[in-house]
């Protein structure tokens, strides 16, 4: 059978939605971070696929993907660091506990 663009786009969309869903539902901050990774990666897939299928001539999308991966890594690192800080101060990594400031 012939593999069209949709075969990639739909999974990436699903990934993205999973990420969003996870972000909104999971209590553990690490889990939230993982869902964020899912979202970012689905974006990467999109770029790669669009580049590969629609504009095979150039590599813009690919490059964007590379940079996006790098950025994602940086974000994760930073986020982890901060989460650790929070944990150090409040002994919790449950997101529903970091709601001191509100209204």
């Amino acid at each position, binding site marked *: 059978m012939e593999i069209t663009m949709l075969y990639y786009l739909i999974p990436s969309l699903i990934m993205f939605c999973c990420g*969003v869903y996870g972000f909104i*539902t999971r209590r553990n901050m690490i889990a*939230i971070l993982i869902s964020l990774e899912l979202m970012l990666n689905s974006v990467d897939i999109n770029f790669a696929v669009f580049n590969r299928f629609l504009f095979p001539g150039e590599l813009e999308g690919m490059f964007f993907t590379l940079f996006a991966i790098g950025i994602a890594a940086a974000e994760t690192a930073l986020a982890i660091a901060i989460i650790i800080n929070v944990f150090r101060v409040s002994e919790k990594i449950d997101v529903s506990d970091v*709601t001191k400031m*509100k*209204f």
Partner: protein
Amino acid sequence: MEPVIPIIILALPLTMFLVLGLFGHKMKHPVAGVLGTAGMGVTMVLAYITAFTYFFSGNPEFIDADTHTRLQAIVFNVDWLAFTDSLVIRLGFLLDPISALLLVVITTISFMVHLYSNGYMRDHHGVWETGFQRFYAFLSLFSFSMLGLVVATNIFQMYIFWELVGASSYLLIGFYYTKPSAVSASKKAFIVTRFADLGFLLGILVLSFYTGTFNFTDFTSTEVAEGVYRVSEGTAEGIRAMIQNSAAPMFMGASVLTWALVLIFMGGMGKSAMMPLHIWLPDAMEGPTPVSALIHAATMVVAGVYLVARLFPLYLMEEASLNIIVVVGALTALYAAMVACTQIDIKRVLAFSTISQIAFMMVSLGVARPEFHHGLGYMAGMFHLFTHAMFKALLFLCAGALIHAIGSNDYTAMHGLRKHMPITHITFLIGCLAIAGIIPFAGFFSKDEILTATLGHSTLWYVWMSLVAGLTAFYMFRLYYLIFWWKEHKVPAGHHAPHDQPWTMTLPLVILAVVSCLAGFVPFGNLVTWNGEEMFESVSFITNLKALDWTVASVSLAVAVVAILLATVMYKKENPLPSKMKNALPALWRWCHHRFYWDELYMFITHKIIFGCISKPIAWFDRHIVDGTMDGIAYVVQRSSYAIRTLQSGNIQKYVWVYLIGALLLGAVTAVCLM
């Protein structure tokens, strides 16, 4: 005529007012008194000179020699306020028969009062009233305003001074400002007359809008009245247009001219205390008695009459307005006379008699028609104004003397004073005779001519007014007897017997008494007529006697004599008759005694309706509805800000949720709109 003297006539009282008002409190009492009196004296002399020159100099600017017609002369006239090119308020000095007459009356009475007050305004031990200087300042202010009123060259100048006399009357009524009754009386007087003045103002506005002028000379020059137009200052067009269109711009079935005249007359009703706007005058007696004599008997209260006389030619154009005047006048006359019969406060009796006498003048103006004896009624009205001023001032000053001697207005405290105060007694008697219309006293002639004019107009009103004349004689002599006879006066222990007052007070009485005896013989017909034409070819001392219509005269004399006799029977000696009559007709007596409950009615209207049903609700509405709305908006904002606070729940996941929904909505809504 040189404007010098007229200017001084107006300026002198004003300066007196300013001087006494600003520096009076630094002066000694006698100084202030003498200053004020002297100033008024000078003014009086100058006024006499002016009047004399006007009437007797034969100067062509005052009289047209061949037609024997007196003219209106504008001595000076300066622009004061220009609304438009044609509508200009000018301050000026108009000389014509009535203004000259009024000049004399006002200055004379005013001078008498100034003189009299020197004695009246201090007690038996010579202690001066507090605010003595203020009193003189106000007197001068009043004199100034009144003079300005009568010499007005245009209706707006008249309105200006009209307001000023109102204010000075307010100040003088409220002279004893620590006395609540005086305060409320002054307030009442001002507000009632103010209400009337609203009518006056509207009348002026209507009139000036349709005629395009304020000037009397444009309204009242006789040519205009007879429908022959002298094009003067281009306003005759206005008048003509108005008379022709007097049918055209109708409003509620009456022509604008009628409306204007009636509204203006409303102003006159206010000042001259015609029913139903009379209620302020009796209360105004709270003021010092000299003030009552000057303002509320002789001068200010006749301003209404003067106003009608001033605009008489205009009134002639509208029969209806004249009839209204007659009706109002006649009703007021009877009403006031009836009430006067039952009052026990000496000054109130005089007040009501004043109202009734002014009503006489109004009636006579109302019945005046050119075709009947060259407008006899007009002449008679002015004549009565003159004589009444004299004898009513006299009566009030006598009353003042009595009150000053006894220390009370209530004549039940006064009986049998004739031995103690002979001069007052005689002069008072003369006054009573004059007002009762006994020949040859002043009142007889004027009243007789009024009745003649009335008869010429309609028999009904003639009978009516004769009856009132009888009542007048009756209640005056009731008053006279109850004060001076009835029973021996007993001096309360510790008091010294009442006695005649110092010369400053008695002299005016004597002078006025003499005038009241003689004034009747002044040949008025040659001096004051509605169009200035002289009535008689030749005049002598007995012109008025010869001119009498003896049928009318004899009737009125008879009425008066009968009334006096009745009074004598009832009140000369202490007897049960009065109380018998009282019990015979209790309802009538009660109504008269309570002045037909007019004041109660007004109290109800002002307090219950104006305050209770209008002002209070409006104030409430303002606080709670209008202002409440503003506060309400603020409250709503606060509430909504509280309501949406949960949006900021502090939980990241909710934040993201909102974020996502927002983004999707943004996209979705726009996408949908695009399709």
